[in-house]
């Protein structure tokens, strides 16, 4: 049994260059080349906001019923519709294959996978490896509950009852311990003097 040199190991960890991250808003950042899980009723918006910040082609991979209800006349407020490509899969296998291909592809795309059920550890690990290869951003909308996964972070997002459209974004799992909670509103719909400490101002991505 050889002894592990902890010092050299720490040095190696410190030397490895930090992954590029994507800042969605003040304090909210997502690592690129990773997959992130999103749950809750506000998951769509979280994914859309993050994708808009990525500024790349967005691939929205979903089953027909989830894809057909997407409404560009609403999304246009947050994201450039020209960047969106919709991929309709007919089975779970196709969903995963398409997401894997899109994450793996050269170009660092933003991939939003609308998953109707859980993702097993093996599946999420495969997607994670694909994301590392492509360097893009993977956002997985989990509709059917969560399970142990290889994702970098997990977000619970829900719209909240407030005077203005607002959302609670809670990072409930982070590989590097990056958890936290944010109350998010959209700038422009904000009344002066009412900003809480933890309110995050977000500018609309495209002129409405």
């Amino acid at each position, binding site marked *: 049994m050889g002894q592990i040199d902890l010092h050299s190991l720490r040095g190696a960890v410190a030397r490895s260059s930090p992954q590029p991250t994507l800042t969605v808003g003040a304090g909210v950042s997502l690592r690129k080349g990773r997959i992130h899980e999103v749950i809750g*009723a*506000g998951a*769509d*918006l979280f994914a*859309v906001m993050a994708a808009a910040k990525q500024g*790349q*082609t967005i*691939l929205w991979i979903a089953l027909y019923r989830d*894809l*057909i*209800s*997407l*409404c*560009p*006349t*609403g*999304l*246009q*407020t*947050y994201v*450039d*519709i*020209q*960047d*969106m*490509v*919709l*991929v*309709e*899969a*007919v089975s779970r296998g*196709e969903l995963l*294959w*398409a997401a894997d*291909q*899109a994450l793996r*592809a*050269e*170009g660092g*795309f933003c991939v939003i996978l609308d998953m109707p059920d859980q993702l097993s550890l093996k599946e999420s690990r495969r997607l994670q490896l694909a994301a590392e290869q492509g360097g893009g951003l993977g956002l997985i909308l989990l509709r059917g509950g969560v399970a142990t996964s290889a994702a970098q972070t997990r977000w619970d997002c*829900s*719209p*909240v*009852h407030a005077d203005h*459209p607002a*959302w609670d974004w809670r990072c409930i799992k982070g590989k590097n311990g990056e958890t936290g909670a944010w109350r998010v509103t959209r700038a422009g719909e904000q009344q002066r003097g009412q900003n809480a400490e933890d309110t995050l101002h977000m500018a609309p991505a*495209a*002129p*409405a």
Partner: protein
Amino acid sequence: MPRILSIWLPQLPLDRLTRQSDPRLAGPFAIIAEEKNAWRVTHANDAALKAGVVAGQALADARAICPDLLTEPSDVVREDLLLRALWRWADTLSPRVSLDAPDGLLLDISGCAHLFGGEAQMGQEALLRLGDLQIQAQIGIADTKGGARALARFGPNEVSLAAAGEMIAALAELPIAALNVPHKMVSELARAGLTTIGHLQSQKSAELARRFGLHLTQALQTATGVTPDPVTPKVADPTYAARMTLPEPIGFLDDLENVLRRLATQICGRLDQDQRGARRFQLIVRCVDTGDHPLTIGFARPCSDPDAILRQFSHPLSKLEIEYGADWFRLVAEQIEPIRLKQGSFGEDAKRADQRLILIETLGNRIGFDHVRVFKPRGHHVPEQEFAQVEAAGVTPHWHPAPRPRPIRLFSPPEFVQVETPGRPPLNFKWRRLSFATDRAHGPERITPRWYREEDPRTRDYWTVQTDQGRRLWLLNYPGEDAKDWYVAGEFA
């Protein structure tokens, strides 16, 4: 003055069988077709003609006259294919050839005849070459299309010539049927005592037009060259295809890819030369035991890159089950489009667009191009008609923002809501098995559908509702009879 050569192929269906050395042609033989509810003879060979069978005769009569008669129904598709093959062959005589379906070709030979030593020699040469192909033909050469057609069909010799500028004299002796006018009109003219084109020319054209219609005088004028009637050549589209036959069957994936690479390189070289690309490629692999296996791939933009073709074919090729090997391959490029050359290596935007298209191709080839889509604005006022999803391949995405922001999810058809405490909008309701209470509501936004279309004609009232539970819903109600029913039309972010 243009010079037109018309080739008439009077026995084309029979020639097709002759070329296949059909043994039945030794005796009396006829091609038949169903016309006016009866099988009639359309073409008969020499032996049959000698026995008294004529074209247009009912089959029953022909059989009574000539009991040994053998027949075959006409095969329009194959005859057309033979005619089109001859159309391509006619390139050897003149670059401007047009099809004169169903049984002729028209060649504009202005400036070509001297290459064959004169027009008469050119006609003889064409007959000779067609004879080598076992095709019977008659040829007419004149100043006009109508004239050449008439001379080919009704001329005195195998090669009938009308000297330049002498159209009226050359056509005078020919019967009126040569003008390609309806059969009925020919018999009507015959009753009026007019049987040859010469007779028509001696009449006043205004009177002819009044009595028999403009069609007749027009045919006469174009045939005599009074009004121009040029040959509109339609060059057969070049086919980009290559095939390979191997002496021994192969079955390993590497070998298949090598064959494909050689075929693809050949086709792409030709495509590149013409500055074109193809959006679809089809590879036919002929296995020695199981026959042809067509494999198809598509591209989001015209492509002429062998590596890309190989990359996209790798998946279908790996799925192909070959047991005893394949020995015949054919690669065809389809949906040919011009390639606009652009600078590839510079500029982040161009690179990104390329990467996006490559991904669309990869996804589309596996799950179908109709499943990879983008949004397109449609400019209607009904919320679900404001946009459409269209195939992403071959479309430049564009979007102009709709005037009013809508929910980010739109349910079509809208989902029914169980109202618990009524109101306008309801104060308490259940949707998707969740209870909601209305806190604030904004509305109604009244939308009237397009009455001139076949769609739900009810007027709609939309309400934006902030629920106590946090979710912001777009409630829908049809004012009028069904005012009690509420629906969720969409969900805001």
